[in-house]
């Protein structure tokens, strides 16, 4: 849910990293945090268990480019991936403007990816959000592992809706591909809020 503040000249968006447990959501956020200079990021907060599993969310506020004098800010969140934390996962999705789905590329995790993606769709629906209209990108993580499934196979399993999502390969532990996915989803969010197409839709309704 975007907030436009004409007084502060700020536009705020919320982007959520979604996906199964241990797929690399927190690692992606940690890479973003490590890579950005202090002026472009706030404090990263991780609500995790003793063994570093996310129990509620990770949070990192970042700034993007200034658009027509307005600073665009993105609040990045992760959800807990473990299946039994669905209630907290749903809470984190509240007011989401864009999603990065982090899939674990390994063959043995395909089922978890598919289940998590279905769970995303269900949880969005509870807020009356339509996944087909939500800016969303796929981030196939752990591409460096020998057990990683080929991308076309992952695409077939996870990305064959009528509206195909942009997809990216990543190795979040060393940061490869993380910003490709994040920059793309941030563009999609901006476009969905302020782009030409949105204007046409608004005029037509």
């Amino acid at each position: 849910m975007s907030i436009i503040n004409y007084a502060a000249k700020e536009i705020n968006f919320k982007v959520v990293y979604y996906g199964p447990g241990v797929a690399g959501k927190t690692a992606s956020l940690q890479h973003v945090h490590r890579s950005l200079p202090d002026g472009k990021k706030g404090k990263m907060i991780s609500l995790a268990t003793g063994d570093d599993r996310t129990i509620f969310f990770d949070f990192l506020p970042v700034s993007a480019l200034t658009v027509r004098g307005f600073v665009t800010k993105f609040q990045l969140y992760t959800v807990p991936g473990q299946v039994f934390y669905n209630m907290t996962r749903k809470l984190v999705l509240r007011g989401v403007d864009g999603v990065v789905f982090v899939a674990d590329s390994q063959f043995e995790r395909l089922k978890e990816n598919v289940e998590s993606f279905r769970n995303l769709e269900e949880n969005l629906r509870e807020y009356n959000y339509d996944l087909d209209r939500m800016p969303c990108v796929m981030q196939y993580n752990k591409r460096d592992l020998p057990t990683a499934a080929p991308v076309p196979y992952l695409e077939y399993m996870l990305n064959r809706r009528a509206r195909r999502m942009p997809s990216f390969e990543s190795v979040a532990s060393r940061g490869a591909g993380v910003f490709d996915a994040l920059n793309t989803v941030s563009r999609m969010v901006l476009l969905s809020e302020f782009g030409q197409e949105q204007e046409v839709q608004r005029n037509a309704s």
Partner: protein
Amino acid sequence: MLRDLVIHENEAARIGQVLGSFLEESGASEALLIDRSGQLVASSGKTATFDTVSISALAAGAFSSTGAIAELLGETEFSVLFHQGVRESIHVSTVDGETILLAIFNDGTTVGMVRLFAKEACRAIGAVLAEARTQPRRVGALASPLSADETRSQIGPESR
């Protein structure tokens, strides 16, 4: 569907006034108006001393999770949340379905005072926000659609 929020200069000034009076009357040191998705909408007080962005995200999370507990107990929500510290305490209350008001206070006042004036402030801010939600989203510099170049948002360096 959650509604997007637009704060124009007029609403920002009115909210600022309400928050200012609230701080004066209640004796609280900070007041944050927070969207339930975790974003800070407005603030007043000596905010330079606290990380208000982080506090907003965490308070919205805490408020929504206690709301979920309330539902499990058959309540619609807990409309007030209070955490007491050694020096600083927080009081969070419902403004409307989409926003909450967080007050930070110390032993210069009491939770009763904060609660009393927070109730009034929430009502006043709720009225301003109800008006704000009827305002056009895109005016002035944002009135016309952004070009492809302008939406080339870049948060960090890409791999290629």
